[in-house]
């Protein structure tokens, strides 16, 4: 067994730093500190550093002679310096309409779990979810923190198309589809907020290390927010915490 992190080449223009295979805030904090350190040391136009649950990927714009050596050296420096960055945690409040018009599978979960729809909605919107990273689709946030009571297996027959904004539960995860896509998660609502806009800079406001909390809105409010988004008048409600 090699010790973590493993430093692995991934093709001719990327290096992977892999930490213990765990989903935890502790690992994420470590990754984000190291990510920030590498971003400061490497040229932004030539190198991109991104993270998942337990990996950092350092990708170069073109194949580079000694990327492995460079990353290895920077990691040793980082360890020796015992650097830990302070993060300001941002909490995004995200409206979700749990109306039956959107919540295609809420009934099924309610029956299977012997919980009322209101209890499920209450639970889903009562906790803060940690954004681990964005992947799968542009603007798709990998969230941690779904209460165990709401864990629910994926649909046996995935839908051909899940609408943009659909809020779903799949196994231990919950998330929002940023665009229409095939999908196997159980749909319990819809959020009208823009998670990805290719014409905006940056195209996503919410990032790895942020937190989000859902709050229930009515069909009418959902429609109103959707209009605000279309007119470019929508702004996220964000709380900044030390």
């Amino acid at each position, binding site marked *: 067994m090699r010790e973590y992190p493993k430093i692995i080449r991934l093709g001719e223009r990327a290096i992977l730093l892999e930490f213990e295979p765990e989903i935890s805030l502790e690992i994420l904090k470590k990754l984000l500190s190291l990510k920030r350190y590498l971003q400061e040391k490497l040229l932004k136009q030539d190198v991109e550093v991104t993270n998942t649950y337990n990996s950092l*990927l350092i990708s170069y714009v073109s194949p580079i002679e000694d990327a492995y050596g460079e990353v290895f050296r920077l990691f040793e420096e980082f360890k020796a310096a015992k650097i830990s960055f302070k993060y300001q945690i941002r909490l995004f409040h995200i409206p979700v309409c749990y109306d039956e018009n959107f919540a295609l599978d809420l009934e099924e979960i309610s029956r299977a779990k012997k919980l009322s729809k209101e209890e499920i909605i209450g639970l889903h919107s009562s906790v803060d979810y940690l954004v681990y990273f964005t992947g799968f689709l542009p603007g798709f946030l990998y969230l941690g923190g779904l209460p165990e009571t709401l864990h629910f297996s994926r649909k046996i027959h995935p839908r051909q198309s899940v609408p943009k904004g659909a809020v779903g539960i799949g196994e231990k995860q919950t998330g929002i589809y940023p665009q229409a896509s095939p999908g196997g998660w159980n749909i319990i609502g819809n959020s009208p907020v823009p998670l990805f806009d290719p014409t905006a800079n940056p195209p996503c406001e919410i990032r790895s290390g942020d937190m989000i909390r859902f709050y229930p809105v009515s069909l009418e409010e959902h429609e109103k927010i959707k209009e605000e988004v279309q007119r470019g008048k929508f702004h996220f409600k964000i709380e900044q915490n030390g």
Partner: protein
Amino acid sequence: MAEAEILHPGLFSSIQDLGRFGLREFGVPVSGAMDQQAAGMANLMNGNEPDTAVLEITLQGPKMKFTGPTQIAISGADLSPELDGVKLENYKIYSVLPGQVLSFGRRNTGYRAYLAVKNGFKTEKLLKSRSWSPGITPHNRLEKGMKLPFLGSEARGSEKNAAVNPDAYITSAVIEAFRGPEFELLSASEKETLEKGNFSAAKESNRMGIQFQEKLENSLQPILTSPVLPGTVQLTPSGTLIVLMRDGQTTGGYPRILQLSEAGINTLAQKLPGEKLQLKLIKYK
């Protein structure tokens, strides 16, 4: 602005450049030309910068009319290009006059051809790139009636041709690959199948990913969702091998058993569904 007006779209074509670097953070696929060597060559011959937008043409080419003068170079797959019915050759520069029609015919070699005009196509730039990509740009394939803008440039008559026709990598059956992060978890027989077996692209392949028809026995568990790149070979629970290509997602939860070399990606981009290929495991220098 002069335009190339699409009279017939062909099978599947899209505008591509080097893609969107630096946006993995947001889950944005890098996109860009599937065969970057060919796209780069078409630009180089035309005196264009490497990140100039070209038209990537898959198997059956489009028919288009130019409204202004330019010079063109075609590279990659040989799809029998013709200008006003006169045969053209790949890897040569041709002058095009207003009103002339470019068309394509029978496929001779390869799968994807690249058309570069002088100074490139000036379609809309989104997130630092003109590459068409599903979910990012308004279009992802060429359609009849579209008009691809370019800066008309004086036709200069014939210019010197590229010295070599680098066809070898296009017709090669050998795809180079490094061992992926989860390679060592494979059993000895799985490894042997990978190294010795014949593979071929399945019909369900596209710019996002190329599946192989042949399956591998799979005894591996899924991994925590982790970074993937163009050229990452994933092994799905059913044993299907999927090579992520330029429009591929940025993260995935299947074991990453191989990582194609840059040359391997370019060669694979030129393979027809069903065409035989072998994987050659190579080591990092």
